[in-house]
């Protein structure tokens, strides 16, 4: 099963469950049915956005500089630049 298939099947399952609740096929207390169920998709979207932002911020917070790798990378870039120039390709 590919990743896309997995995601799509989970999404289909959740949407059918939600649709059943939304159309009133599941007995909920009146207050929940009226006030909470219609708002759930929006809550899910906002929470998903907040989760992504959290993950981003956490990654930025815990990202450490790697001076060794930086030096290595710069050297490799210079080497590639000279090799390409020898073959007639200009790089900025």
């Amino acid at each position, binding site marked *: 099963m590919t990743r896309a298939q997995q995601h799509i099947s989970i999404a289909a399952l959740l949407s059918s469950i939600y649709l059943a609740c939304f159309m009133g096929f599941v007995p909920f207390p009146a207050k929940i049915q009226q*006030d*909470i169920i219609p*708002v759930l998709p929006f809550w899910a979207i*906002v929470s998903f956005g907040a989760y992504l932002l959290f993950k981003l*911020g956490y990654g930025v917070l815990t990202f450490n500089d790697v001076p060794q790798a930086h030096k290595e990378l710069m050297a490799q870039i210079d080497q590639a630049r000279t090799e390409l120039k020898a073959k007639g390709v200009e790089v900025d």
Partner: protein
Amino acid sequence: MAANALLDRLVGLAMLILASTVFLYYTTWTLLMPFIEDEFVQSFFPPRAWAVRIPVILLLLGGAVVGSFLSLVMIRSNRKKAAKAAQKAKAK
């Protein structure tokens, strides 16, 4: 170099705090407010209709921005392609 790392960490931390605040406020607003009758607590939250309107407006705005950026890039690239083709025809 160290100052940049500190600034990065601050940005990451700010994103983290923002994401958590948004999540907690929105969850309380949509899922908990219907059950709380206390007027003092209710005064912290706008009417619940806005809990749906604000995400929808933001989503539409975001979609419009992404769509216009995409179309701008595509138009620019097509124009460049047409200019190149015209130049080639002229050179012939």
